[in-house]
């Protein structure tokens, strides 16, 4: 049984469809490994008993036409799951059990998958190391005391550590791609409007997007195919023609033009990242694609812009956590006192910092100088990409400016923490799809990722490029199972 958890999603689906494995076999295997992996702290809430029941029930009358037949899957704890506690990594939602299901998870269960549990994440997805979670740090399976990245740190750790065959995260400024890069897995942030935001605890509404995190590109394409649907319950969901991403996946990227943006060569970037990027350029050339030097002139403004827009939206989105209707409530002398105590005790330091930044930039007298200006710069950043896409089909960059760092290394330096997202943030601001694929190791043997950025709604193209590169890179994650009990 031990090798079940080593199988990719695609293999598991095939084995269940050909009845070589039952859903119960697979579910049991992942539950057992998850139970032995408490050291990783990847789960906030497990739903193992219920998962096993569902697996048995599936096996009694298996519908093998489904895309995820009887496949167990843990998901980031930002997705509301009916009757299963949903915390968003926060004390303020520590007792919150939704009566409803997010559209994205609903799509997944409709294709036959089974919920294993809810995965740890930074509080309200605010963080790049999973260290802001109320439920503690998550360990990176790559090495002890190494952060898995964030905010989808539990998700990345669970996939890399084979606690779940695949998962979904959310990405507001890099929260899928950065942890994917830190743990040696594949992570896709789809085009804004591709996956419904209904039922996902909101961080920054104009940037949030759910996406798959997987062991390989094919698995990633399959899950994207399942979760990307038009949803009338989300006014920003876009009704466009969606591909059968896994079926249409091809390694033939001959003649594709790949842009290499000079602005991503940032000061102080480690040589190993530069070397990785050069290797990446060689790989796409080896696949028959052509690389073209391009310019995205406003790149350096992306991070400051993001740290105005995202906190502004968050400060308003998180106003509903006030102790009145659900979630944590502190005792207070009166309404205002109750609000203040509830929110001071219920939110962690990073969330409070961002609420304050957001409140500040929206204040009268500062709105024009910060929020309005940031929106204008955001438009310029989007224009940069539009310009570039007149010449190229996709853009290749490193995913992160460094490999994973140690737990506690950056906790006291928020700006250095924010710099982690320097390559991923522009993609969210422009609403584009981006995928991170593992592409090599640094000198310590930690994984490094490359990012492919696509045109809006052109997920198929970046999946194809990633698929072709994946074969050339032939990445092997160095997992020693050091945490297993």
């Amino acid at each position, binding site marked *: 049984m031990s090798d079940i958890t080593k199988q990719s999603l695609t293999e598991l689906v095939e084995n269940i469809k050909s009845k070589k494995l039952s859903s119960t076999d697979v579910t049991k295997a992942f539950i057992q490994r998850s139970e032995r992996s408490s050291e990783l702290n990847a789960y906030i809430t497990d739903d193992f008993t219920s998962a096993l029941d569902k697996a048995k029930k599936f096996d009694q009358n298996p519908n093998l036409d489904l895309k995820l037949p009887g496949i167990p899957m843990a998901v980031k704890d930002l997705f509301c799951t009916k009757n299963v506690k949903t915390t968003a990594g926060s004390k303020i939602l520590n007792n919150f059990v939704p009566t409803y299901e997010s559209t994205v998870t609903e799509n997944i269960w409709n294709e036959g998958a089974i919920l294993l549990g809810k995965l740890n994440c930074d509080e309200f997805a605010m963080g790049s190391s999973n260290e802001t979670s109320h439920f503690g740090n998550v360990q990176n399976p790559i090495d002890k005391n190494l952060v898995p990245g964030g905010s989808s740190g539990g998700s990345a750790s669970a996939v890399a550590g084979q606690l779940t065959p695949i998962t979904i995260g959310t990405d507001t400024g890099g929260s899928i791609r950065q942890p994917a890069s830190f743990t040696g897995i594949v992570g896709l942030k789809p085009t804004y409007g591709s996956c419904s935001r209904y039922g*996902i605890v909101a961080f920054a*509404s104009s940037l949030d997007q759910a996406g798959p995190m997987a062991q390989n590109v094919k698995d990633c394409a399959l899950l994207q195919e399942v979760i990307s649907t038009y949803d009338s319950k989300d006014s920003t969901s876009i009704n466009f023609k969606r591909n059968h991403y896994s079926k249409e996946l091809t390694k033939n990227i001959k003649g594709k033009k790949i842009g290499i943006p000079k602005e991503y060569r940032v000061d102080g970037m480690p040589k190993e990242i530069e070397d990785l990027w050069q290797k990446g350029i060689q790989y796409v050339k080896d696949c028959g694609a052509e690389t073209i030097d391009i310019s995205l002139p406003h790149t350096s403004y992306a991070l400051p812009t993001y740290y105005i827009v995202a906190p502004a939206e968050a400060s308003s989105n998180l106003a509903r956590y006030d102790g009145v209707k659900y979630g944590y409530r502190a005792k207070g002398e009166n309404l205002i006192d109750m609000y203040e105590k509830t929110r001071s005790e219920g939110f962690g330091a990073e969330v409070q910092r961002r609420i304050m930044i957001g409140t500040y930039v929206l204040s009268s007298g500062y709105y024009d100088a910060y929020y309005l200006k940031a929106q204008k710069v955001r438009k310029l950043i989007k224009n940069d990409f539009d310009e570039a896409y007149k010449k190229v089909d996709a853009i290749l960059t490193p995913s992160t400016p460094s490999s994973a760092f140690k737990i506690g290394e950056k906790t006291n330096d928020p700006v250095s923490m924010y710099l982690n997202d320097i390559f991923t943030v522009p993609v969210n601001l422009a609403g584009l799809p981006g995928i991170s694929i593992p592409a090599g190791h640094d000198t310590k043997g930690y994984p490094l990722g490359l990012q492919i950025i696509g045109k809006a709604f052109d997920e198929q193209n970046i999946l194809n490029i990633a698929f072709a590169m994946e074969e050339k890179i032939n990445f092997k994650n160095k997992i020693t199972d050091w945490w297993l009990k």
Partner: protein
Amino acid sequence: MNKKNTEYLINRRDNQYEVVIGLEVHAQVLSESKLFSSSSTKFGAEPNTQVSLVDAAFPGMLPVINEFCIKQAIKTGIGLNAKINKHSVFDRKNYFYADLPQGYQISQFKDPIVGEGKVILDMPNGQKEVGIERLHLEQDAGKSIHDLDPQNTFVDLNRSGVALMEIVSKPDLRSPDEVNVYIKKLRSIMRYLGTCDGNMQEGSLRADVNVSVRPKGSKEFGTRCEIKNVNSIKFMQMAIEYEANRQVDLIEEGKTIDQETRLFDTKKNETRSMRSKEDAHDYRYFPDPDLLPLEVSEKFIEELKNDIPELPDDKKKRFIEEFKLSSYEANILVSDIDTAKYFEEVVAKMGKNKDIKLAVNWITGELFAVLNSKGLEISQSPVSAKNFAILINLIKNGTISGKIAKTVFELMIDGDKDPQKIVEEKGLKQQSDPKALEALIDKIINENREKAIEYKQGKEKLFGFFVGQAMKASGGKANPQLINEILKKKL
């Protein structure tokens, strides 16, 4: 067009002050469901029974615009002769309160759905135009109930998310009377359009009232105070009167007026400071990222325009031209859509040989009196338009006299009876046979010889005595015109 109305001025010593008023009217959109959710908007339900996950702001819930409410707002804009904005934006107005589940109200700040327009008021001395600044859509909040428990506040979210139209006037109003007419006109227009039921008791129509004063003749505006959430016309008028006098007193005492938000205490009939400008909330407005800007096409607006019924101003014009009514009569008939409907139905049922003047007099006289005394709306009239029309025709063609008609009308009220049948059953038909009447009059003259002689000698007042005797003798059924003619001949 703008004739000067009798001025409403506040006098102190030798100084005269003019009052400047602007209104922000909150009108609940007539709609089955809320602005961003499918919950019911029905009034009077058990607390918290009409609340969706969106209305209660559960995590991950998203607003979806109710297209019907957009149509209602645009229709109202058309009714206010206003510019319809093809591009409008929903913003978040951020503040904390227990009955505001999201921690923000979705409203329209910079780009409202409806821009400038105007409303014509019929004042006793002529017409007055009042400018509309804008109309925007927003969500209502829930209701905090403070008086059920000494320690706790209860929250009812049934209203949370209900669509409101905020209609902002220009500071064009100058008296409590104008405010009265303005509110009634707005209400009338929206009821014609079916976009707001205008029910002030149920809170479907409330207003924030901005009041300032200035020396008569001054062009500058004074510092204004905003009186929040006044829910009846009477209270608006009382609040304005109190507030304007308060401000004038301050000026007369050499003090300045603070720009502030005030509350009207209906029991003490006074306004009280709620918060000063310094304490004003910073609402941190910004475009709601959960909603894309609202774009409506020319075609969409045109289709709604085709859907607009005849509105009070046009109806009034037509009534004056078509039915030769006075401006005053037409006003009374058009101000409420149900009155206009009743009147038009009566006109239609009266057929060819109709007396519209008579019908108008009877509607505004007898019918209104009955409705008033019974506390009924005209839509609940105990006499249908059809039977009412028959009654008018019976008067017009001489079957019954006006006096008898009043008796018949009394009998009609109970169960909407057919007046024709009442006349037949009770034998109330007018006596119009000249021969029979001549005989009756001969008899009276014979019985009152002395009086007849006195009349001939010049005591003309006695003519009325003979009319009265003749009517009495006929049981009130004699045709009064014929009696007059015969008496003149015989005496």
